[in-house]
């Protein structure tokens, strides 16, 4: 046992010399990653259940209610079904790229979570450039979709991949500009600092001076995560299933996981950027503040992001799909000019020290 441990330590030192024999640090990181990924995947599973329920309710149906009490075991049954299904490889497709694509989709979707601050001092890692990290890693996810479309050797996936690539190009800029305004107010690209800067009650949250940016960020997040009404990448009725056409079983499930993990990430990001992250909405309200002082910050963060996750489903249940050129027009002719104008407005407000945000 002892020898095994020593060889493990030696192996770690060999592979990662920068840890300098500090195996405990690696174990702690692994535990942190596990503590993050397990609840995340569970949330994803039950988010799919919530989606079916919410959309069902909005369409006057009652949604899944057969598997387990009130259908609570439905996501588990779905997962089991997908796991036991055969993975079909299209003939003359590049199997290596075909299998690499789902991995490339899910890895960034999970890796981004490393820098999300859940509470004061609760994060996997505290990067000084965490916002840049989020944007950079987040955009890698689209490689998975593009690669999936290319490796499938099939026409509809290729069309989906092309659409996905052009959507990313258009909306990554919009999201970037929208978040620049946040950075201008906070004066930092560290998510912890951004949240800490919004301390002191609801009036200090950034969604008040940046309300249009918040709306634009949310809509762009819908596009980035390929959600209805911007789901032209899948485009069920136009291009069958887009990049997912040739994927079955677990490979499909991984794409699914990535999409939902990204949705939850965008919801949490919206809260972190615009709605005061872990801060209680009752801060600075005297009696209410002390009455809710016992609630840990992570609960507030999750409660606020739950609202945004609900908004995703609400939007999906309400609107029909945008036409492809309409999405493009929305990005280049509406959102981009608006964000650029708002950057100047924010710059002006910063110079004039307006409100509690630009102190």
């Amino acid at each position, binding site marked *: 046992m002892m020898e095994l441990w020593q060889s493990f330590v030696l192996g770690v030192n060999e592979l990662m010399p920068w840890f300098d024999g500090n195996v405990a640090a690696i174990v702690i990181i692994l535990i942190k990653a596990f503590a993050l990924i397990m609840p995340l995947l569970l949330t994803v599973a039950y988010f799919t259940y919530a989606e079916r329920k919410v959309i069902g309710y*909005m369409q*006057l*149906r009652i949604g899944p209610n057969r598997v387990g009490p009130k259908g609570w075991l439905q996501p588990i049954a779905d997962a089991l079904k997908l796991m036991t299904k055969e993975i079909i490889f299209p003939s003359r497709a590049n199997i290596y790229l075909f299998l690499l694509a789902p991995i490339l989709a899910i890895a960034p979707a999970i890796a981004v979570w490393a820098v999300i601050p859940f509470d004061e001092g609760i994060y996997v890692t505290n990067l000084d450039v965490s916002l840049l990290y989020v944007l950079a890693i987040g955009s890698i996810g689209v490689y998975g979709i593009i690669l999936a479309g290319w490796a499938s050797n099939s026409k509809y996936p290729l069309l989906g991949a092309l659409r996905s690539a052009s959507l990313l190009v258009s909306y990554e800029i919009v999201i970037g500009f929208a978040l620049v305004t946040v950075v201008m107010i906070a004066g930092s690209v560290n998510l912890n600092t951004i949240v800490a800067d919004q301390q002191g009650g609801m009036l200090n949250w950034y969604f008040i001076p940046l309300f249009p940016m918040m709306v634009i960020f949310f809509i762009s997040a819908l596009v980035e995560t390929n959600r209805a009404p911007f789901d032209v990448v899948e485009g069920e009725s136009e291009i069958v299933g887009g990049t997912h056409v040739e994927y079955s079983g677990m490979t499909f499930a991984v794409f699914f996981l990535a999409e939902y993990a990204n949705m939850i990430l965008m919801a949490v990001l919206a809260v972190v950027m615009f709605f005061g992250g872990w801060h209680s909405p009752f801060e600075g309200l005297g009696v209410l503040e002390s009455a809710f002082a016992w609630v840990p910050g992570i609960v507030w963060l999750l409660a606020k992001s739950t609202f945004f996750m609900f908004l995703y489903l609400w939007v999906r249940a309400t609107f029909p799909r945008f036409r492809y050129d309409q999405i493009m027009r929305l990005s280049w002719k509406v959102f981009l000019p608006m964000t650029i104008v708002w950057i100047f407005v924010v710059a002006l407000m910063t110079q004039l020290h307006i409100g509690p945000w630009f102190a």
Partner: protein
Amino acid sequence: MINGIKKLAKNLTLSELRSGMKITAKEFVNTKITVQYPEEKTPISPRFRGLHALRRYPNGEERCIACKLCEAVCPANAITIESEMRDDGTRRTTQYDIDLFKCIFCGFCEEACPVDAIVETQIFEYAFESRDGSIMTKERLLKVGDDNEQVIGKIKAQDAKYR
């Protein structure tokens, strides 16, 4: 000009999107109309044309007199009847088959029958697992009739005044 500004303001405040979302939010809390099928069922009209049955008179005598009017009227040729003279001198069927694969459930046989022998019931859950299950023989038809005579009598009485 004024209209243009109005339209711009309407677009920027997302008013149409908000009214759409208001509708879905309203339906979200509305009473749901789903019928949980195996446990709950929607009401069935007395005129519902389901599985066939052959009825009997209250004294146990079968009604069918082998007049073959149903066989003649059947547009799908689903009914096959053979008959002979019984010992008491009456004409009775020896074979009365309805092929459920051919039957289109039009109800003409029921309308043609002068003695209300062949009827269509409200039974619609009669899945069978082999192909020969599709032939409703005389025995099976009589059994359906015997098992459901109470219901059949009631629904036929309900509908009688409209015929």
